[in-house]
């Protein structure tokens, strides 16, 4: 190996090691900290306390429910729209890209403010309904969901497949349920996990719209206790790791399948 390459490699190890330290030191420290729940010994007492708190289950289930509604509403709105654009209206792609940038331009805190202002008085007094929270969550996760699903559609070349299916006599329902949706399954699953990871611990919208969700509950615990927040942090990291890890596993697998397919120049 040449000297320059050796130097490059040792610098690479250095930066990689530094990155890993930044990533893992807080996680390890938090884990060890969470074990100190009982004085003098290491134990899972803090985890027990968290799980025994009825508010934990209540708020977690509430957020789970909100996540489920967000996923359903998001998929029902975005999947047909994305399919429609790919098949009938490619011209609308630019419009959708522009719209999918809007949630970045309007940060959640501003969105929450706007939602309250628009929907706090009749005729649309929605502020006291969880539907408004779900609508906000759909807006926040829309860019990620749309991009994931759009990428999935690009990968399967839906117009070509539709033409092929129709020339074999398939009806549009057959095209939708036997061709489009199965082909989109990896991207839809990715969108679901991404959406779940976004919503489950979300704080901003839930706090501002005053809902007893998991995010505000965690913040409240952090104000009063010492070791339980660390336990919650580890649990919520496991949750994020689980959902994002699964998502990447799915998209890697479908990507690998795509690459293995012989290429036509």
């Amino acid at each position, binding site marked *: 190996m040449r000297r320059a390459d050796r130097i*490059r*490699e040792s610098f*690479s*190890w250095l*930066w*990689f090691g*530094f*990155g890993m330290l*930044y*990533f893992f*030191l*807080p*996680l390890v*420290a*938090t884990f060890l900290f*969470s074990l100190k729940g009982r004085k003098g010994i290491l134990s899972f007492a803090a985890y027990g306390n968290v799980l025994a708190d009825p508010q934990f289950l209540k708020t977690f289930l509430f957020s789970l429910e909100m996540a489920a509604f967000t996923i359903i509403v998001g998929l029902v709105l*975005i999947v*047909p*729209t994305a399919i*429609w654009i790919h098949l*009938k*209206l490619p011209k609308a792609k630019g419009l959708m890209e522009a*719209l999918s*940038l809007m*949630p970045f*331009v*309007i*940060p*959640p*805190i*501003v*969105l929450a*403010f*706007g*939602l309250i*202002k*628009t929907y706090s008085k009749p005729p649309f007094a929605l502020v006291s309904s969880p539907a408004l929270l779900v*609508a*906000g969550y759909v*807006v926040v996760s829309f860019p990620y969901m749309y991009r994931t699903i759009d990428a999935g559609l690009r990968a399967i070349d839906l117009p070509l497949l539709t033409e092929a299916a129709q020339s074999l006599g398939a009806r549009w329902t057959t095209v939708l349920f036997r061709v489009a949706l199965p082909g989109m399954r990896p991207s839809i699953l990715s969108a679901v996990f991404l959406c779940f990871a976004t919503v489950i611990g979300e*704080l*901003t919208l839930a*706090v*501002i719209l005053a809902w007893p969700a998991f*995010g505000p509950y*965690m*913040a409240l615990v*952090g*104000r009063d206790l*010492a070791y339980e*927040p660390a336990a*919650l*942090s580890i649990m*919520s*990291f496991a949750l*994020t790791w689980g959902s*994002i*890890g699964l*998502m*990447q596993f799915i998209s890697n697998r479908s990507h690998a399948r795509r690459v293995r397919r012989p290429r036509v120049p």
Partner: protein
Amino acid sequence: MSRSQALRKAGSWLGLGPFLCFAIAFMILPALSILTGSFMDKSGVFTLANFAHLAKPTILSSYRVTIELSAVTAAIGTILGALVSYAVVSGGLPKALRSFTITFSGVASNFAGVPLAFAFIATLGRTGLVTALAKTVFGFDLYGSGFSLYSFWGLSLTYVYFQMPLMILTIEPAIVGLRREWREASESLGASSGTFWLRVGLPILMPSLLAAFILLFGNAFGAYATAYALTGGMLNIVPILIGAQIRGDVLHDPNLGYALALGMVVVMFVAIFLYLRLQKLASRWQK
């Protein structure tokens, strides 16, 4: 165009109806309501006074702190993220480390908000493990030396935890796009490693690096949850100020809140606009 063609065209736009209705109701109308609200006083009469209030020293300083926080964490995130990304992509490290780093970055960039704040409190808080370790093992009193997790630099350190992984994910395609041939060509012409970076590598990467910096800037600028959980709303950054405004904690003037929010939207808009222009510039090299 015949009548039936025109009808079909209208019909194909109708397919976007449900989604567009949703987007107008829950994205565009709320944004417009902030816009109109910031030009009105409490009784709904047109005024520019809210913007005059933005010039108050407290509010100006909160914008300054937010911009500094976003710029500092974006800069640190950009530099460190690019170095780590380069190390795992073309630094000669085992291939498995690269996919591991990418997967982990996906998780870590989503690990923000309340749990992240807790993790840093457990690590670097007053009774945190690293704080305690520094004291007992190295005899170094972190908090005695002026450091506090609940200050500007403490919050910055916490933000970098999600900024750096986002950078790794964002810059990876550009670093993959740096072709080995370019380095070999410059080496065969007698260029040193430093010359290569100064004259070839960095100029090619620059639009991508700047675009990523702006993305990270926006990412920190709009963040609310981490700061809320870490400082309990004590640090006067703009998102915290807006949140306090909505819940009626301070100032008691919703219209000033709208003006604050509008200012935030303007900053984000400029950031996204620059990001898109730079991305376009960068995409020339990624074919």
